[in-house]
């Protein structure tokens, strides 16, 4: 059995609800989706029980009514597990993963600055990557944002 197949077997046995969206795209590339309410336990299991001890980065997505976040986890063997969760734009709250990965704070600050997520448990610190004088309520990576809004200092996402 390949490593990816063994991972799939173990993870789906533990969390049967992951099966529908579980995908081994090619060797070393696993993709899965989890609802926000089950995200913390799946994440914990992958890191603590399945040896995905590397967090490469977190990608934020504008999915329309929702905001998505993909946590790109990896193992020493090179296999990556790309776990996606989503939150409604009306309540875009994620838990911080800094207890597992202290350096994740800059990836989470990007989610806050560029897409308008709120990350609970993120320690206070300087924003990243936008400048201090960036107008509040403007999230550049949202699909409905364009640079012309900067001059007007609108807050379309307030």
């Amino acid at each position, binding site marked *: 059995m390949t490593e990816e197949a063994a991972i799939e077997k173990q993870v789906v046995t533990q969390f049967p609800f992951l099966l529908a969206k579980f995908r081994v795209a090619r060797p070393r590339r696993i993709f899965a989706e989890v609802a926000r309410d089950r995200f913390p336990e799946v994440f914990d299991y992958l890191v603590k029980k399945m040896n995905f001890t590397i967090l490469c980065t977190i990608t934020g997505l504008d999915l329309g009514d929702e905001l998505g976040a993909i946590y790109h986890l990896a193992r020493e063997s090179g296999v990556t597990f790309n776990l996606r969760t989503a939150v409604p734009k009306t309540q875009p709250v994620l838990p911080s993963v800094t207890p597992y990965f202290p350096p994740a704070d800059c990836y989470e600050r990007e989610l806050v600055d560029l897409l308008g997520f709120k990350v609970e448990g993120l320690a206070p610190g300087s924003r990243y990557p*936008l*400048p201090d*004088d*960036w107008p509040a309520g403007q999230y*550049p990576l949202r699909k409905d944002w364009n*640079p012309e809004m*900067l001059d007007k200092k609108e807050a379309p996402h307030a």
Partner: protein
Amino acid sequence: MQLVKKIVTWARIKSPWIIHFNTGACNACDIEIVAALTPQFDLERFGIVLKGTPRHADVLVCSGPVTRQIKERLIRVYEQIPEPKFVVAVGTCSCSGGVFKGCYNVEGGIDNVIPVSVYVPGCPASPTAIIDGVVKLLTSLEAGEAKAQAGTPTEQLAPGEDCE
């Protein structure tokens, strides 16, 4: 060799001090500016010295498309350089914004913020092009053609121009 002779003579008259400022560049031009100082290109033989502070500089050598965060600082640096002062925009980004033109957080070209004396295009501008740009500035000063900056860009290098 005519050009080199002219430059060496000129350099005896005045040894320009340069400050290098990166306004949010990808570093390619910055490395080429530093490379211009290393043995293969050796900008220092023209008496050009790289200084760390604007207060002792004559020429501001700038790279980058000017990010929002750095714009104020660029203006401060420019203001701190004593008159007469000259600005060399190195690289396509600092000439016009380059590939970053239209990106949010980028002003798009040094001359949107401060007046420029010489534009050295290239992505990145090669060390020979940079030297040529600085030398063109110096020789035009000698010939009395250039105006010290009060908002008047003087000369534009044609793409592909190279020094001997």
